[in-house]
């Protein structure tokens, strides 16, 4: 499942990676960025986190052409009135300005991370921002996907539930179960058709952030003993309830009471 979502075979408009201090999701975020760079014309990475410098370095080292990084972590709330990215800037105008080649068809947005936005502004503002990013109104091209990282241990359940309601795929990083793999995540994917898939998987990430070795973590549950041979109540009876063919024919010949026959007399 996770391989499909990262590679794009499963479409999902808004993806949320929820991590915590013990299980980091930044590498998975970069894996999304790399995969998206192969599928869309431009990938815009918005940095809001203090730790985003690692992301910046990693992306620079990959040297992929169509990834644009916008660093907003220096002056988040724009107290110094620096131009550029802040929490309250209109992201779309920023993307339009920073566009290199005009006439790009598709754009993807990667956000690292959403936590400062959720902390400094209200949850509805965050949800509306996410929702607004996916609609391609002000932008001339289509936004294919928005992937964002969120630190689950920084926020209360209520705000998290509101953000979860807005996203179509939620991937929660959980502790690894087997020593063979490095990461494990619990994915909740809401398909367009309405079906909901919930799955926990172990996976590895290679040097160039490709997803490998995906294996599902199966829950061991106690199986309910199925009553396989259901008893037919008409079996093992001392009397015979079934009809032979001759008897069925004779039954159809019986004239029901209170019917009129040819001479209009009652039976």
């Amino acid at each position, binding site marked *: 499942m996770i391989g499909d979502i990262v590679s794009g075979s499963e479409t999902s408009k808004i993806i949320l990676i929820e991590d915590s201090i013990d299980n980091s999701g930044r590498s998975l975020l970069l894996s999304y960025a790399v995969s998206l760079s192969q599928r869309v014309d431009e990938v815009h990475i918005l940095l809001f986190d203090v730790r985003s410098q690692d992301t910046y370095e990693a992306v620079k080292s990959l040297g992929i052409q169509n990834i644009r990084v916008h660093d907003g972590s220096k002056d988040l709330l724009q107290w110094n009135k620096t131009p550029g990215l802040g929490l309250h800037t209109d992201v779309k105008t920023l993307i339009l300005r920073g566009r290199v080649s005009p006439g790009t068809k598709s754009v993807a947005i990667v956000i690292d991370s959403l936590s400062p936005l959720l902390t400094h502004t209200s949850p509805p503002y965050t949800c509306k921002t996410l929702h607004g990013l996916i609609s391609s109104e002000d932008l001339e091209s289509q936004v294919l996907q928005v992937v964002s990282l969120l630190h689950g241990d920084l926020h209360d359940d209520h705000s998290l539930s509101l953000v979860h309601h807005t996203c179509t795929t939620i991937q929660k990083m959980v502790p690894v179960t087997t020593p063979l793999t490095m990461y494990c995540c619990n994915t*909740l994917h809401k398909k367009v058709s309405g079906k*909901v898939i919930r799955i926990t998987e172990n996976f590895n990430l290679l040097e160039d952030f490709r997803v490998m070795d995906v294996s599902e973590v199966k829950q061991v549950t106690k199986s309910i003993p199925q009553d396989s041979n259901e008893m037919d109540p008409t079996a093992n009876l001392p009397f015979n309830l079934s009809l032979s063919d001759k008897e069925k024919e004779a039954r159809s010949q019986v004239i029901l009471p209170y019917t009129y026959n040819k001479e209009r007399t009652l039976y």
Partner: protein
Amino acid sequence: MATTSFQKKARVKINQIAGTKPSLFNNQLLVSSGVPSLDNIIGGGLAVGTVCLVEEDTYGNYSRLLLKYFSAEAAMTGHSLVLTSGDQDPSQILKELPAPIIDDPGEINTANSAEQPENMKIAWRYQHLPGNQLGHSSSKFGHYYDLTKVMDPQLLTSIKPVLIGPEDLERGCNQCQELNPKYKYLLTRIQKEIEQGGHSTTQHTDKRNILRIAVHSLGSPQWDECGGLDLSHEDTDFSLPRFLLALRVLMRSAFAVCLITIPTHLFQIPGYVGRLRKMCDTVLLMESFAGSDKEKNPAFKEYHGLFHIVQLPRLNSLLSHMPDTLDFAFKLRRKKFTIEKLHLLSELSNT
């Protein structure tokens, strides 16, 4: 030979509104919700002048389906429609309405005349009685829909639906003290629609029509609603109950029915959802099994979720309608969506 010689009195010509019928219990004017199985459970249909609240299931799929049935019923009966959504463009919802299953009345007539006297083997007493007697209303009450097909857009354009999408809400709202600006804007729009369409009870028109108002996912974060909390995250924001109260006041003096879906699972303040329920007339709750443990429960194998009737209104009477059981479940088959009584599988013992 007729079974009885009793003859009905000569038909009284009532000025009937298309798509409505009087309730069998208390003579209240009812409209169909679009799902006939739901109409049967709640006492015949939704009463005109009331607000029906549908508490959404966790992922909102089935409540959106109910909304689609409601809107499709508007197209079939020729009622006016106002459709609002904060999450998505309402025209998208309109594009996915199910197509009605229209049976050809011509066929039934020929079948009746050519019927053989030996047709029925057991119920032969009823053979010579005339076929289905249609009531005085020309358009049927409650239609069946096929989910695999999409409704013809021509049917929709004939009723001229009014769509209020997220952009309209964003542009139209003004700062307001008592109420969330978007709710205020929606209220003013609804009031305008009632007056312009002649649906108010104070206006006298010769051709009365019902206005159906369908609101999708009210109270979701896209409506600037923080799950009942105001901006400081400490106090409760009472905008939503106030909106529902004002809406109910508008409904009571109009020939209109309102169906609202609210994602109440996002409201975690104790008692808040109770307030919302008290502010509405009919309250239904859909609990889907998707993604939960109940999906694997063998007792719920055939169904896709549980359907709870939380509240039924007492309109102009002392009692509300009480269905014979409160255990309902819904299932979504390929072609249709039904709400049924929850049947637990019987156990045949091994003796």
